[in-house]
């Protein structure tokens, strides 16, 4: 109890400092899982939430090679020109997300689950910590 009271001043000061620092430092506030990829090539414009690809979930089931060599996913967030027509046609995500190997495309909201306006990125990547993505919204 006393400890809490003693901490009060420090808390207030830190809060003020944090707010003050917030004016100058653009800290990315998102904290998703390391390696989650947000793909927002077309989603925002189409009125959908951006798609979020969880790397961790997929790498527990498939080795990198399956998607990055066999299916032709390039090692670049947003660098694959993926759209729903291709997916339904069995390309990219559609190679597995066809109701056969994995659930199919009618579960829109399982992929299109990102916060609207989130720019394309590899989440928590080193480059993201070093430099804010160009399309990042200004706070």
């Amino acid at each position, binding site marked *: 109890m006393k400890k809490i009271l003693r*901490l009060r001043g420090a*808390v207030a000061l830190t809060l003020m400092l944090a707010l003050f620092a917030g004016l100058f430092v653009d800290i990315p506030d998102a904290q998703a899982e390391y390696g989650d990829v947000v793909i927002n090539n077309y989603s925002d414009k189409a009125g959908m939430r951006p798609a979020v690809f*969880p790397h961790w979930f997929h790498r527990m089931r498939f080795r990198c090679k399956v998607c990055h060599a066999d299916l032709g996913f390039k090692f670049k967030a947003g660098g694959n020109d993926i759209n729903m027509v291709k997916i339904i046609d069995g390309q990219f995500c559609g190679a*597995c997300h066809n109701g056969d190997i994995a659930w199919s495309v009618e579960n829109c909201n399982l992929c299109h689950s990102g916060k609207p306006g989130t720019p394309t990125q590899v989440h928590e990547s080193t*480059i993201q910590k070093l430099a804010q993505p160009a399309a990042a919204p200004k706070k």
Partner: protein
Amino acid sequence: MNKLYALALMTALTAPTVHAQQSGKDVYTKVCATCHSTGLAGAPRYGNGGDWAPRAQAGTAKLYQSALAGTPKGMPAKGGNTSLADAEVKGAVDYMLAAVKDALKAAKPEPEAKKAESKKEEPKKEEPKKAEAKKDEPKAASAAAPVAAPAALPVTEAAAAGAAAAASAPGDVNSFNRLLKPVGKRNLPPPEDGIHDPANDGTHALQPPLAAYGGLPKSNAGNRINWVEALNQKKINPRYDRTDPRAEPVVMDLNIVREVKGSMPDVVYPHKQHTEWLDCSNCHPAIFVPQKGANAISMAAILLGEKCGVCHGKVAFPVSECRNCHSKKKDLPVKAATAETAAK
């Protein structure tokens, strides 16, 4: 007669759960979700307070009427399924309203929630006992933003504090300018992770990472799982082929040593661990020319996402784990000898 009474009671209480026929949730899933999950044709989206707020202002009765009779904006009568009973349609409306209940309570969910949170911090430190009583109100408001399900009403103080810490970084003394994430902020479930939209019903259906990580070997960076070790110990068995679960990787066991400048230990690049996951064509020849000495690699390039940085720092362990790569100690006696000759 009994049935009629039940129906009347149900409508009066707007409780979707006691359906004699299909529950509101069932109707929503089968009929309404087609448009109301994605917002097709301008439909208010499930769990999206912003979509529902202007419509809910007119009152629930008006919403029922729109759902039953349809609207010129595009809502078909009874969602296009006229075989539904009126009560079922109303139940579905109630179900959808329940998902945005919290958001509707707070007129402006976003700023309100933030204000409530910062307020919550201070009274807690000053007078923790009084604050407890007050806490329920701001909690409801702050819950409006992240959660669609009205689950967490009687939360303990500890849980509430944890949630507040997770939600607002500046409120936590130790989080200020802290580069390493504290335990409570690692591997958060999708609705709290910052990039998933908590207002999206699909977000809540996704598996939280920690639910899958149990028993996997740990590491100090990335998502804190040592994936190579997990594979070694056969804790996971990811497929090497899309369809064939028995396909075996073509593993090449060849270490490449790269001598580096300065006192940093030399880099040992193990083909083995890489070929267990990847195909040769993933790296060669586009990223690395398959010839010793032909690749200029620098930490700067890696940090910027080139060379090793194509994966390391994105999905594979990041550069903070220096010694994972820089693992071959230089021969110190040679160095000492050169120092001696220099002294002479």
